[in-house]
């Protein structure tokens, strides 16, 4: 369960988030949709305790990220890049992360297997392709077998096989009762996996609800998106 409650943030005197409020519920894939620079990543970074909100709160299972004990067992996150230092091998990277949350070393090999990187365990992260870096990032997110998954543009850099694999993986995770929140600017991709959709534009939430609700009378989610983000004056609430 993710609760974002009236989060605002100003960066270099520009307000980048205005009272952002939404929820992501267990057992559902929630898509976080918006054009480049709309505030998706900023919102996720605040949710993950990397940045501080100016006001408001972002909670994971009722607690702010920085108050979580062994956070990786509650929430796994995939941000840009692999999150690994280029000189370290994939296994060495996963092992220090495992140690930080008191997880056994064997988890490193287990998650490498899940993302299909077993053969590259001894390779240095700097030698990974973009797609492999994303898989390593996902492996890191899965270490603690968390009940909440937060992914920023998860299909970026993945090949068609990887995209299909990711889609099925996220659907299965939700089916098992996990909370899945993913940001994307790819609407057709999102329309295929999301149960709920949140649309953000210029730092404000402009629509939220189930996929059907947000799509409304429009033919596709994409049409709805353009209708929502082009006309600022007309808001759904």
């Amino acid at each position, binding site marked *: 369960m993710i609760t974002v409650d009236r989060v605002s943030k100003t960066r270099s005197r520009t307000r980048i988030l205005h009272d952002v409020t939404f929820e992501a519920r267990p057992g559902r894939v929630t898509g976080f949709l918006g054009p480049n620079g709309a505030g998706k990543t900023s919102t996720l970074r605040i949710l993950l305790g990397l940045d501080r909100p100016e006001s408001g709160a972002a909670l994971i299972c009722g607690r702010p990220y920085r108050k979580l004990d062994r956070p990786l067992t509650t929430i796994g996150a995939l941000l840009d890049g692999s999150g690994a230092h280029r000189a370290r091998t994939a296994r060495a990277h996963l092992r220090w992360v495992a140690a*930080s949350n008191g997880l056994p070393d064997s988890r490193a090999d287990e998650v490498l297997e899940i993302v299909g990187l077993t053969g590259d365990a001894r390779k240095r992260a700097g030698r990974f392709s973009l797609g492999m870096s994303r898989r390593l990032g996902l492996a890191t997110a899965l270490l603690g077998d968390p009940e909440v998954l937060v992914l920023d543009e998860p299909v970026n850099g993945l090949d068609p096989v990887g995209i299909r694999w990711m889609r099925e993986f996220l659907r299965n995770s939700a089916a098992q009762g996990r909370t899945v929140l993913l940001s994307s600017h790819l609407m057709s991709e999102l329309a295929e996996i999301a149960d709920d959709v949140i649309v953000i534009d210029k730092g404000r939430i402009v629509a939220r609800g189930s996929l059907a609700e947000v799509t409304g009378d429009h033919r596709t989610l994409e049409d709805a998106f353009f209708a929502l983000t082009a006309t600022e004056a007309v808001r759904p609430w």
Partner: protein
Amino acid sequence: MNVARAELRKLLTLPSLRLTALLTWAATLLLAYAYAYADRDAPLGDAALAPLGYTQAGFLVLGVLAAASEYEEGGQIHTTLLAMPRRLPLHVVKALTLGAVTLPVAAVTAATSTLPAGGATWTPAATAYLTLTTLLAAAVAGVVRRAVPAAILLLGLYFIVGPLLRARPGGIAAYLPDTAALDPPRGAAATVAWTAAALALAALTFHRRDA
């Protein structure tokens, strides 16, 4: 405890740190040999500590690399903060583990410099000095967040500004962080104070700043 284990693993699996430690020790050995030779005709200072005056640069680099590695490409700092979101305890543990990893390297390097010149009594002080210098460098690099600019800043202060200030008459030398390298009784307090101040500043920025 988990945090300490994770930070220890991070430091021990970074190849550049091993290489820096090895090169620093080798350079100290070479200089200790050079001083042993040179001293026969013209004394150039205390041969027990003088080589460390140069090779403390290796410890500065060690601290810089350890801290800046978090902020390099790949975005490891995100992983670190997602796994260990409590920043102040994390910062304290980081300093302690870096100190623990540096201490043996500092001890071996200090002994390499002091023992051949018959200055064994200086070994503990020199070991402590080199370890603190590493922590100070790590704190500075943690604020600067990039390795090359941090190295320029520290090397410039230690090897250009420091000697220039010291060459001037007046008591300023005792307040510089590196006076203890050549004159331990005089500069020890300054080294400790500078290191503590740098660590405090780094902790504050680490705590306040967006990652």
